[in-house]
């Protein structure tokens, strides 16, 4: 019994040590974000701020506030439209199968594994041909489409569990494809919608490379690119950098802490 107990203690020590290790960079960042430049140099990076100040947070917010709204708009439009497209595709692939639909489904899923580098050069040209290059519109278009394969995948897993008889009954009443989708399938999709939407929110919010390449001018940047610029232009101002990082990190941290249950479903379901 005693051996078991000491083993339990070791187990908890290991788990807690790992947790501290995981939190260390985050804590160091948070602590530094609330310090004055002087205190940053005088104290160690992990001591909590003795005289907490909001100046770095306010200064960095000033630098990235337009981008925060940009990213918010990108997230909103990207999530709604890609979930919409994704659920339609998933519904057809799951409940309205036709010859070749399995192949098409595989082609959609394989899009998840296409590295973005392949699309960078073509899309610079495509977006400039469409008159979208350099402004937020290019990113709105991309995020509306690029989330669709993953949403299709998540919705299809759930739709496969809906028994066909559900739909058969409606079909006997003469309901068409579109009516069944709106009256039967969509009301069942609230949970997968939450899972897919949270996943898309984090992916779009955290995305960097598309904003870097397709937008130009301070006013059009998504928040990650704005943070990278802030990091580049205030090299030694650590408190300002950390404060900026904190603003960008906040929404996704909140999602993972309070809605982790759904997020985990999305990531484990892949």
């Amino acid at each position, binding site marked *: 019994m005693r051996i078991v107990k000491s083993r339990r203690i070791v187990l908890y020590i*290991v*788990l807690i040590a790992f*947790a501290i290790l*995981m*939190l260390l*960079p*985050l804590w*160091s*960042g948070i602590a530094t974000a609330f310090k004055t430049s002087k205190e940053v140099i005088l104290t*160690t*990076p*992990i001591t909590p701020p003795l005289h907490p100040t909001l100046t770095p947070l306010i200064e960095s917010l000033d630098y990235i506030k337009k981008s925060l709204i940009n990213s918010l708009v990108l997230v909103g439009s990207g999530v709604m439209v890609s979930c919409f*497209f994704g659920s*339609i*595709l998933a519904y*057809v692939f799951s*409940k*309205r199968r*036709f010859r070749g639909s399995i192949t*098409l489904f595989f082609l*959609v899923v394989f*899009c998840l*594994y*296409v*590295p973005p*580098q*392949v*699309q*960078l*050069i*073509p*899309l610079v040209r495509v977006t400039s041909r469409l008159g979208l290059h350099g402004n937020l519109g290019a990113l709105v278009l*991309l995020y509306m*489409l690029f989330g*669709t*394969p993953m949403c299709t995948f998540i919705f299809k897993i759930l739709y496969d569990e809906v028994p066909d008889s559900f*739909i058969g009954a409606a*079909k006997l009443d003469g309901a*068409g*494809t*579109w009516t069944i989708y709106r009256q039967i399938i969509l009301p069942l999709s609230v949970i997968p919608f939450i899972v897919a939407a949270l996943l898309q929110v*984090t992916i779009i919010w955290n995305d*960097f*490379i598309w904003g870097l390449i397709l937008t130009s001018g301070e006013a059009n940047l998504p928040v*990650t690119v704005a*943070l*990278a610029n802030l990091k580049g232009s205030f090299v030694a101002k*650590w408190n300002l*950098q*950390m404060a900026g*990082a904190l603003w960008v*990190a906040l929404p996704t*941290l909140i*999602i*993972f802490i309070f809605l*982790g249950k759904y997020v*985990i479903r999305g*990531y*484990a379901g*892949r």
Partner: protein
Amino acid sequence: MELNKNEKISVLLIVLPILAIIFFFFYYCAGWNFFISLTDWKGFIPTYNLVGFRNYSSLLHDSIFWTSLKNNLLLIVIFVPGVILIGLIFAILIDQRVKGEGIFRTIYLLPFALSFVVTATLWTWMYSPRVGTINVLLEKLRLSSLKSGWITEPNIVMYCIITALIWQFAGYSVIIFLGGIRSIPESHTEAAKVDGASSFTLYTRIIIPQLTGSFMTGFIIFMCFAIKAFDFIWVLNKGGPGYTSHILGIAMYKETFVLDKYAYGAVYSTIIFLLSIVIIIPLLYLIHRREKLK
């Protein structure tokens, strides 16, 4: 359920436009990218000439390419197994009916919530030679001899990057394996416990062999990342010092958007695409076959 002709038309009318746009953005672009790699396109000038595989042969004599490829292989050889191993170990530890399991899981997953730009900013601070967290902590612990320039040292910069990436992905890996362990039917493990198996044999003989699915999922996800990585290193140190931490994604970005050699950049991205196809298609095939067997 068979569809009749009218239904088929309406289904196709709904689905085909969406599919067409998506396939255009993924597959047509991949094809066009390959085509560009055979030209001498400069990006700003709209005209270009076909030059065949000349770009590919000059790639073979490009030392930056070999450095980048080597670093990508380093990610595949160290980052991927490392993150899988840590995920497996901590999934098993959490599985020991730990109190506050949810809290540990959430904490471990937190770094994965962050954008690579955020984590790169945090780790620049961690690794900063003079005032950074790691060096200051080492000094406080009277281990000054272990202090180092970290990401400014060409010899260890890649390992610093890999450590930070493992930190970021470890929680994700834990989630994958925990899901796998939890989906093993309890009857399997109960039988072994009745037979008096120690918990070590229980795991090595019974549980780990049944985690093939989790291993494959993890392998695909982390492998994909190891091939296409860009954001973290770019924000951390732009592939420096010199070219020592360049990976294919960084080299591609630099050639294309810094030096305006679009065609040459397209060669890099074609290589990235081929690498991911070579690694991912067999794995997807294996997963598909396993699911059929079930």
